[in-house]
């Protein structure tokens, strides 16, 4: 928050600003003091905003041409691909955009885990972020159903059937969700409505996420509290704007490569077969970004417990600020946590891999071990580590690391040079 009171220069500006302080807001956003040592992992917030807006804009255009009806949905998607001007481009951006969105959000979340951005005083930012992530998963799942291909239909059947695990009312809830006794036209129309609604809920939460961020200000790679504004900070504009812009452009190159050269590689071939309730595909697999949770679901032999495990795997993240007992934020100064962090990264990648494989034999065994470790990390490792770990000394400021000469400072410096190209 800027310390000085902002007054617009022009009379009209002042008149308007006294009635609605939009100019004060704009001034706050441009002057917003940001730690000067933020590395490129911090650019994914801006990239995610871009992803959200891209999905909303392309989705709006697609919705103008799409027909939410079980008999016409598949055909209307082919109509978009063939006859709508640049419809193929809009649809491929939207379909690959979902994958890019998740790629960015996973980097964003794991950045937060590494640098301890979820810790006090940023718990509310973190929890809003988890809600956004949950809504993203819902939106992605609902959107995948809309083309009404085989994977859409059977994915919808599998996921909605999870609710039948709820004791007593489960079956009733599933029928209520379907709007009938199987996944059919009423399911498709409500999924379309919700798929249209959720991005705007996400947009609202993103505003809150950024608002909550602007109260304490950004965390930074060395994870210390900094005075704002000070020699440790730079104004958001132009320093961070140009850096975020540069990172966004690099991200867009990757994005463009997928859209123009391998637009279907992240999707499943079966989704180009129109939905057929009488033919079940050989393997029903969700999109890649949901695979780790799918693996957790299948690793538990009991249906209800599997669903609980899957939901807990996400919700446990919301409790993270209290599960992690360490006062030190950045992993740079936590030698043990740093190792466990990378084990967790590997664990999630393994879960994603076995999620794509059939749930049998060795794969099932690996999935079970990886699931157990996932929970162990959050429920045992993190709370214990906070008490037992010997952390290395943390510098007092970004510009004046007064602990000159300590080997840990070298580590901090190395971390700092992360952002050098």
């Amino acid at each position, binding site marked *: 928050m800027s310390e000085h009171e902002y007054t617009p220069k022009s009379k009209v500006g002042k008149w308007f600003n006294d009635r609605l302080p939009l100019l004060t807001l704009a001034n706050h956003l441009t002057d917003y003091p940001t730690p*000067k*040592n933020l590395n490129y992992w911090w650019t994914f917030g801006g990239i995610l905003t871009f992803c959200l807006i891209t999905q909303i804009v392309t989705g709006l255009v697609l919705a103008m041409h799409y027909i939410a009806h079980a008999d016409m949905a598949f*055909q209307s998607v*082919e*109509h978009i*691909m*063939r006859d709508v001007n640049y419809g*193929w*481009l809009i649809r*491929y951006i939207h379909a690959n955009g979902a994958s890019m969105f998740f790629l960015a959000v996973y980097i964003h979340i794991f950045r937060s885990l590494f640098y301890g951005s979820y810790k006090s005083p940023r718990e509310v930012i973190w929890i809003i972020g988890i809600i956004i992530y949950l809504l993203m998963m819902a939106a992605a799942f609902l959107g995948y159903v809309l083309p009404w291909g085989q994977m859409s239909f059977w994915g919808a059947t599998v996921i909605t059937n999870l609710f039948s695990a709820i004791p007593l009312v489960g079956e009733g809830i599933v029928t209520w969700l379907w709007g009938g006794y199987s996944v059919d036209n009423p399911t498709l129309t409500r999924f379309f409505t919700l798929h249209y609604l959720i991005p705007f809920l996400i947009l609202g939460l993103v505003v809150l996420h950024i608002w909550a961020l602007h109260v304490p200000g950004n965390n930074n790679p060395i994870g210390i509290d900094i005075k704002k504004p000070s020699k440790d900070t*730079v104004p958001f504009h*132009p*320093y961070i704007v*140009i*850096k975020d*812009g*540069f990172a966004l*452009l*690099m991200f*867009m*190159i990757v994005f*463009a*490569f997928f*859209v*123009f*050269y391998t*637009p*279907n590689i992240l999707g499943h*071939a*079966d989704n*180009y*077969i129109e939905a057929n309730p009488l033919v079940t595909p*050989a393997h029903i697999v969700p999109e890649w970004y949901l695979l780790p949770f799918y693996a957790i679901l299948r690793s538990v032999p009991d249906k209800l417990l599997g669903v609980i495990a899957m939901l807990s795997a996400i919700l446990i993240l919301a409790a993270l600020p209290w599960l992690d007992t360490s006062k030190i934020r950045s*992993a740079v100064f936590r030698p043990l946590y*740093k*190792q466990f*962090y*990378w*084990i967790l*990264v*590997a664990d999630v*990648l*393994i879960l994603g*891999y076995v999620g794509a494989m059939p749930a049998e034999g060795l794969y099932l065994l690996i999935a079970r071990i990886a699931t157990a470790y996932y929970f162990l990390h959050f429920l045992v490792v993190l709370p214990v580590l906070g008490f037992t770990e010997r952390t290395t000394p943390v510098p007092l400021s970004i510009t004046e690391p007064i602990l000159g000469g300590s080997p840990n400072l070298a580590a901090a410096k190395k971390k700092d040079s992360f*952002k*050098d*190209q």
Partner: protein
Amino acid sequence: MKNFFRISFLIALFFGFQFNSNAAEKVEYLKTDWSFKGLFGKFDRAALQRGYQVYQEVCSSCHSMKYLSYRNLMEEGGPEFSVEQAKAIAASFEVKDGPNADGEMFMRPGRLSDKFVMPYENEKAAQAANGGAYPPDMTVLVKARGGGVDYIYSLLQGYEDPPAGVTLDDGVYYNKYMYGNKIKMSNQLSDGLVEYSDGTNASVEQMAKDVTTFLMWTAEPHLETRHKMGFKAIIYLIILTVLVYFSMKRIWSRIETKV
């Protein structure tokens, strides 16, 4: 941190290897040079026209092409038949239209705006005529099969006598590339089956390649535009990225911190 990154990378490699060795148990698809692959990939016009001929003379008696219109045949980026040729092709089909003023359905010659005429009235009729198996619609077929064009190309040439011990029911054939090796479509291609007007030798391999190229186009009619536009978009983004990079360097040089 780096060590653990390496470890996780190794684990990923290990599993990647496992995955590949699993895949290796399946048969390798036949390979050929596809003109439409790569950053500048384009369709071979002549191959598309020949492919259309194979589809028309061989496949279309069972397989529909329901998302394609006759006008597509003359559009840019496709087989690019002339307007007259496309009109003649359309007119060679009888299209059911109506109802007319008397409330009767009637047959008329096809127009450019018509969708490809379907070989069967409906899915049930198709099944009844094909021993219970539904010949899938071919418009997006190459995108609907995991192996894509290589799979279709191989399948068309993959018929052989069943190995000892495999017994086939009536109307079921052995194909080494088909999932489960049993297919209800009999071998369709034989040397010289069609007579290409451009004098190309109609070998089984040639026909398989031509018709698969045609199917790639029916699945991705805007592939050429996509490749051209993608190249421009990426070049534009790279130039912009370089410019922004230098602007960023310049802006950040005002303070000591490096970016």
